[in-house]
């Protein structure tokens, strides 16, 4: 699979070849509206994937199906060997291994930055408080916000909040990180600080699925770019091939629109 995409260019790093996400024939409807159409997707450990596409094309819906924030109606989704069905135990098992970063951060406003980060390790991983705090501090250092640990989210800027949200997810030591437009609610001057953190994560070998319109990020970090339109995966390829030589008319149209901006 990864060989298939690396037409001409090498993958930026070597992948283990071990599969961590597999979606087969996934379909989803909102009432009568067919929002995901026959989505097939396979992700390997350590792979960095950028998902793009016009607004309303189902990108968020697709990645939200991966941790069952949305329910799919047809097809199978298997994460790290566990199939997502109505079984609540399985859903909780999957959610601990899959971190998610939202467009609007969704930090818990009544808890300090540190408490935001230790909540899930304490209550889900049953970690002693001191250990949870120590780990949380190390992740907060990594996103360069450790000095704000005692503050409340409302006291931080958007970029700082998003970095805390990333640290909060990392504290659960997830195997996969999902990002849903993590920079699109930020003021332009804060985009870079968040992207830098994400690039750092990618360099450390985290498996990432990232919905974003930051094409620079896609070019420099992604192993694969997926283009979605009207609920289906239209095209997926290495960034080089994707940007220089898009195969589908729809991709070309989309690229011309966002690159001309």
């Amino acid at each position, binding site marked *: *699979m990864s060989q*298939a*995409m690396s037409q001409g260019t090498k993958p930026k790093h070597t992948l283990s070849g071990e599969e961590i996400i597999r979606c087969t024939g996934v*379909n989803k*409807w909102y*009432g*009568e509206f*067919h929002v995901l*159409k*026959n989505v*097939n997707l396979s992700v390997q450990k350590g792979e960095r994937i950028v998902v793009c596409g016009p607004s309303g094309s189902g990108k968020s819906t697709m990645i939200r199906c991966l941790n069952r924030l949305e329910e799919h*109606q*047809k097809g199978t989704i298997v994460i790290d060997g566990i199939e997502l069905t109505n079984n609540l135990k399985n859903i909780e098992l999957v959610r601990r291994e899959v971190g998610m970063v939202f467009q609007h951060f969704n930090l818990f406003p009544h808890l300090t930055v540190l408490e935001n980060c230790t909540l899930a390790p304490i209550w889900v991983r049953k970690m002693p408080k001191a250990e949870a705090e120590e780990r949380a501090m190390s992740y907060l250092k990594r996103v360069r916000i450790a000095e704000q640990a005692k503050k409340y989210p409302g006291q931080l800027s958007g970029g700082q909040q998003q970095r805390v949200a990333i640290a909060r997810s990392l504290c659960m030591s997830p195997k996969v990180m999902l990002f849903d437009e993590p920079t699109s609610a930020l003021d332009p001057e804060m985009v870079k600080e968040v992207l830098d953190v994400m690039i750092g994560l990618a360099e450390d070998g985290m498996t990432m699925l990232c919905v974003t319109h930051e094409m620079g990020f896609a070019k420099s970090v992604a192993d694969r770019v997926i283009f979605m339109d*009207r*609920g*289906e*995966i*239209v*095209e*997926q*390829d290495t960034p080089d*091939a994707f940007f220089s030589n898009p*195969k*589908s*008319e*729809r991709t070309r149209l989309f690229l011309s629109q966002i690159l001309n901006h």
Partner: protein
Amino acid sequence: MTDNVQSVGLPDERPPANTVGPIAWLRNNLFNSWYNAILTILVLGLLASAIPPFLNWLLFRAHGFDATSTVCRQDAGGACWGFISEKLRFIMFGMFPWEQQWRPLVTIAVFIALLVASCDRRFWKPWFGLVWAAGLALVAVLMWGGVFGLTYVENTLWGGLPLTIILSVIGLAVAFPVSILLALGRRSNMPAVKVLCVTYIELIRGVPLISLLFMASVMLPLFLPNGVSIDKLLRAQIAFIMFAAAYMAEAIRGGLQAIPKGQYEAADGLGLGYWQKMRKIILPQALAIAIPPLVNTFISFFKDTSLVIIIGLYDLLGTAKAALSDPSWRGFYREAYLFIGVIYWIFCFSMSKYSQKLERDLNRGHRR
């Protein structure tokens, strides 16, 4: 090797049959878990055992509008609507002279017309105040009479629905300007004025309305110079005005607080004086925001007028209770209370729907 270009432009498919349609609706909305299924069945059982007997009483076994109390007492299985038809005019208009009762009826119509027209934004203009003044003058002429060939009717004879509406609407109209002053005073930076307004508002809001009505009925006569007396209706009206002013002031304060600081600064920048700034810039915005809470205040105010029964006035609830004390109709309280309950409900429910609609419009306006 996978083809990088997947099939293009997949057609929309219909969702699987078990996720849409009436059966799926039932499953998703009534039986989506085992406990919801149990609850649904319990509630259906409850409704099935409560609704048929109620409908029997209300309609199928009820005695018609021509039934006498003797007939009704013989078969007590159904409502006795004969009670309502016999007492209808007493409940609606109290002791107003029988052949003059078209006057309170027109009064009700005038009030409803004014209230309905006031709901329309197009009429939120200064000239509409004049329409209200004219309407109230018309009401005064109709209720009191004594001019244009109408016989004079003392206000001790007023009662029923017109009294309920008069107490609440006049109370609101007079309290409104007072409440604006109180709200401005509470936010003023003159300490003496602020303390006075806060004390008044918190004092009134801290005590029950009954105690104000008591104050008006037993203390007000003591407050006035010897020889000056005011009648019971006016005393109750004064209590209501004092009461309404405090609550409305709080609603308006909410509106004032919602105005961004920039608006005040902009007004100061224009060099406007305090009153100009308030009248031209701050109040129009603050009042627009305060209208939904003001309507809510009016709703509770409308319900609270029923308390005048305690100081011996006959509003809608008072007349219904008086009708029940007629020995031949004693015991038909279900019919009486249901009837006036529906009247109160129609007024309050329509106003609350209106306030919800205003709130939605307002939010939409803000988001734009």
